[in-house]
């Protein structure tokens, strides 16, 4: 029952929205917004097993590689920057500088250093989705309760222990917010990176559909991106629940008890 109800709340709104889309688009003559029925047919025709293997899988691999790298670098650098006021003052303008540069403009520069292979695509993903992780980590680390920090200091909890046992757990709710943000940005950058020098991938395929005016297929690709984002966010939520159990308990609406 509980599971059913939970599943119900998950699918209720999407179902309504899709139903609305279906009805509203039913008679659409517009080339660029075809009826949903057509898109769904295209979905079935397009995303067959071999296509998934040939296009979706490589994309996912690049996505995971980029996301994990971004998470590692983002949290690592974020802790260092958050803990050290001077370092923060020094590097923040530089980071802000790079953060404001649009990835499509940056790709050519990355190509100069990373070539045009998977390395380039992973770099682009890292470069785009590291920011929410970095920023949230920095802010989370800055916000660690002063009494907690003083406790750690007074008991000689220093060095790595201070970071792993005190700073990171304390900042983890905000880091989780950054990781969550980054997940969907990583998907977006996966698409953008595949607009350059790619020969397979989900993003590549969608762009090809767009260019060759295969509009229902393009929409089906967008839906697939959405599903992908949703699926990954479920996985993320599971991991988050485990890692932040203490936090959810601490913050749980006590009334529900």
């Amino acid at each position, binding site marked *: 029952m509980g599971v059913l109800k939970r599943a119900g709340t998950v699918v209720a709104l999407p179902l309504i929205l899709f139903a609305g889309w279906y009805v509203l688009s039913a008679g659409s003559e517009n*080339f660029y917004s075809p009826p949903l029925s057509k898109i769904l047919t295209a979905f079935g025709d397009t995303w067959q097993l071999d296509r998934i293997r040939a296009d979706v899988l490589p994309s996912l691999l690049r996505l995971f590689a980029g996301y994990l790298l971004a998470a590692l670098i983002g949290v690592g650098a974020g802790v260092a920057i958050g803990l050290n006021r001077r370092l923060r003052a020094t590097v923040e303008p530089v980071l802000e500088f790079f953060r404001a540069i649009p990835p499509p403009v940056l*790709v050519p520069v990355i*190509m100069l250093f990373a*070539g*045009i292979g998977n390395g380039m695509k992973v770099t682009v993903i890292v470069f785009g989705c590291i920011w929410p992780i970095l920023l949230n980590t920095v802010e989370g680390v800055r916000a660690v309760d002063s009494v907690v920090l003083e406790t750690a200091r007074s008991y000689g909890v220093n060095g790595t222990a201070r970071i792993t046992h005190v700073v990171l757990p304390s900042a983890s709710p905000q880091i989780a917010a950054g990781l969550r943000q980054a997940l969907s940005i990583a998907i977006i950058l996966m698409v953008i990176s595949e607009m*350059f*020098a*790619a020969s397979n991938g989900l993003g590549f395929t969608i762009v090809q559909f767009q260019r*060759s*005016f295969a509009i229902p297929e393009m929409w089906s690709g967008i839906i697939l991106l959405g599903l992908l984002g949703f699926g990954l966010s479920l996985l993320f939520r599971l991991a988050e629940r485990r890692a932040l159990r203490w936090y959810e308990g601490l913050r749980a609406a006590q009334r529900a008890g």
Partner: protein
Amino acid sequence: SSDSGGGTTGEGGVDQVKVGVIPIVDVAPIYLGQQKGFFKNRNIGLTLEVASGGAAIVPGVTSNETQFGFSNFTSLLIAQTKGLPLKVVAAGVASTGEAGKDFGAVVVKGDSPIKTPKDLAGKKISVNTLKNIGDTATRETIRKAGGDPASVNFVEMPFPNMPAALDKGEVEAAWVVEPQLSTIKAAGGREIASTYVDVAPNLTVAAYFTSQKLIADNPDLVKRFTEAMNESLTYADSHPDEVRAILGTYTKIDEKLRASLVLPKWPAQINEASLQTLIALGEKDGIFSGTPDLAKLLP
């Protein structure tokens, strides 16, 4: 108001018209025509909207947000097979038809072992768009030279990135157009083949188009646009120095490069025979999902 007629009719009966173009050499005539008043003379107030490619131009034209657009023929043919209601209203740009003196070519690095088109077989070649005019043309070049066109490995990347990619050896050859063609040659690159020339003599590469709806709603406007466009094309074709000058206004190509560019041809006539060849080649390469109907696309 942008009523069904498309284009806003202002005072004095001047139709305000937007045209989606790409900031490259090919569209110099329309800028020149605008400067010379060929459009104003026909009561057309012209606004040129610069976009990066068809993905942004075609939807604008279909929804009448922009009234005309510029696109290469392969893209237009693909759109036609998909049932987009587009119609060509004027020629866009054409190959010079002279091997070695065209505005588009396959190039390699100066010290590359690739010497002839036949050597391109099995190589990694960059094109700006996959499954489009670039790979059709390059394949045909290889085919004509006796190589295996299927063995080529095409990589998609924007033209401006090609000089660096070629230089760094990321690709072994690049299919480029001006001004990158001149840039690469100036950096020591070698031209292997003028691919457009290999497709068909005097190939019409691109065209100006509009939506069928606008033709139905405001045939007069379309007619005037076509006339103005044709006048512009003819003028540009015969005044290369003015073309080189106008390039300085809407592009950032530096003066030296502007002086040395190979200019394309701008005939007012669309070379239908060359397009038939283009269709045949495209079908051979599996670019189209159906058979394009040229008659439906051409005026």
